[in-house]
């Protein structure tokens, strides 16, 4: 919102007042202004929630107080247009750079450093390994890249410039408890910042493919999704620390996830059980065009994570229950995480001899009502405008009576399959995670 207001002000010289909920206001006049737009947009704060409220309530908002200034709302709007600019609002050019962070912290006891790291929001509030020079040097031996190499500059939310080096990633890898052999995976993941954030409960999922899985003893088998393996746990935790420290995610300052998501502790870090795939089922990274011998890491973004609960029953084929459960997902994307035993049943008994065949069937058979589809605010806010512009099928779906059943996964390529698990139960998860980026781990060795 600040960028749009800024464009109107800067390009056309038209004074603008932005009206928003407290989260957007806090970000707009805080971190986004300081590090991103450079323009101190004038905001008025609207009480939350406004979406879903009757007009009678919205009228009280207009007749009530601006949550930023505490003045009557419309007086604050008028002031936004007519109050003379302050010197700060007239400021232009590059501000003096803040002093660079020192490479070393003052020497202190471990207890005090643990406390400092928590106070600075550099942890997930579990204890970390203190990144001494010796430990960081050891971590850096896990890659051929130079410690002072810049991994990325536009690392903050909305591309805020937060340049960081290979050494900085090594510091966080040490803090998370990583071994040097994990470091190329962690560097590949660090190169993907900024990760997606939202006021909703968005989360990430990490899937590793290729030879690196075995080289670093990742778990793609029994208990792979649980806290049962060093590499899975620690690499996942590294991403949490990268998100907070490198990207600069600070709840209430640069991020405003109302509930957030417990998956953010570990980012669902798994390896695909490529060895247990049915004969013609390709690993995820091969489906994406990479060689089986390439080591790749794919970052997914999503919200929902629904378990089959029980195993596959004789009287109800697995794809039928997947269809049923997927009808509660948004329809924008899905990733099925399934035990190898489920993949075998689907391939050998149900005739889905490839992953895309299963995706095609689900695309044709998952249904939900148009009202439910558009009732999801992520769908409506992202795809509703496309429908308004005439893009099909969204334009037609917007016109349907609410109880009309539609096939929300209209694009089978939006349905992905990852095989993982230890073959002790024919269970699976239906998720709405969508792959955002795949990065070569080999490039970071």
């Amino acid at each position: 919102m600040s960028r749009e207001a800024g464009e109107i002000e800067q390009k056309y010289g038209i004074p603008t007042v932005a009206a928003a909920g407290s989260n957007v206001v806090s970000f707009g006049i805080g971190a986004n202004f300081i590090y991103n737009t450079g323009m101190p947009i004038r905001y008025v704060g609207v009480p939350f929630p406004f979406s879903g409220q009757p007009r009678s309530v919205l009228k009280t908002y207009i007749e009530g107080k601006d949550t930023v200034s505490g003045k009557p709302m419309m007086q604050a709007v008028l002031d936004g247009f007519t109050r003379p600019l302050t010197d700060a609002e007239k400021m232009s050019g590059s501000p003096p750079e803040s002093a660079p962070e020192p490479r070393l912290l003052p020497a202190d006891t471990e207890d005090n450093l643990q406390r400092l790291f928590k106070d600075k929001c550099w942890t997930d509030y579990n204890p970390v390994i203190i990144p001494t020079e010796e430990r960081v040097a050891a971590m850096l031996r896990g890659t051929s890249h130079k410690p002072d190499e810049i991994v990325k500059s536009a690392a903050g939310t909305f591309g805020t410039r937060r340049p960081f080096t290979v050494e900085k990633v090594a510091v966080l890898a040490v803090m998370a408890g990583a071994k040097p052999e994990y470091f190329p995976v962690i560097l590949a993941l660090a190169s993907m910042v900024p990760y997606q954030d939202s006021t909703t409960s968005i989360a990430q999922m990490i899937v590793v493919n290729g030879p690196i899985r075995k080289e670093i003893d990742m778990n793609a088998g029994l208990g792979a999704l649980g806290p049962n393996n060093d590499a899975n746990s620690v690499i996942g935790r590294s991403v949490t620390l990268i998100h907070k420290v490198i990207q600069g995610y600070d709840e209430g300052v640069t991020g405003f996830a109302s509930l957030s998501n417990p998956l953010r502790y570990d980012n669902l870090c798994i390896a695909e059980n490529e060895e247990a795939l049915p004969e013609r089922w390709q690993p995820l990274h091969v489906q994406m065009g990479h060689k089986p011998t390439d080591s790749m890491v794919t970052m997914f973004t999503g919200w929902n994570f629904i378990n089959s609960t029980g195993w596959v029953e004789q009287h109800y084929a697995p794809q039928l229950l997947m269809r049923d459960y997927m009808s509660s997902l948004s329809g924008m994307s899905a990733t099925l995480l399934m035990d190898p035993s489920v993949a075998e049943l689907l391939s050998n008994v149900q005739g889905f001899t490839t992953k895309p065949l299963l995706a095609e069937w689900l695309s044709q058979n998952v249904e939900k009502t148009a009202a439910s589809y558009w009732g999801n605010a992520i769908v409506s806010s992202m795809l509703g405008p496309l429908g308004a512009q005439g893009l099909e099928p969204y334009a037609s779906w917007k016109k349907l009576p609410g109880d009309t059943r539609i096939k929300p996964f209209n694009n089978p390529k939006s349905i992905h399959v990852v095989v993982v698990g230890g073959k002790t139960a024919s269970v699976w998860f239906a998720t709405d995670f969508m792959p955002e980026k795949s990065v070569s781990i080999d490039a970071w060795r």
Partner: protein
Amino acid sequence: MDRRNMLALLGLGPALVADTPSFARTAPKTTPESAAPLTSGLVTSLNPAVTPKLATRIPLAPRLDTLDGKTIYLVDTDWGGMGQNDGILQEMQAWFAEHAPRVKTVIKVKKGNFVTDDPALWKEIADAKGDGVVLGVAG
């Protein structure tokens, strides 16, 4: 219910589970050098913090002397995506009509979703000699 009874109920025995093969379910063989124990006393740590770069400052546009006789565009960012989120702007428009009738207000809906820009609309407002814009509502 204890674990053994639960497993029995599910038709599993603990031994079956224990014997299930899994690849790579291994404990660290040695303490990695990157997590070697600290010596006692003071510790020197590397600093995890990144130095963010400050944005180049851009001044706001000059403000208006008065709103009397001016045209204010109330632009709906279409936060919900369904063209149904302009209630607050309509209430603002009603307020202007009642309390400041010499201010002309025009409601417009931004194209695209809430994270996309609509430069054509900004140009349209400028070409129409719009004097001010209220952009809302997001959250």
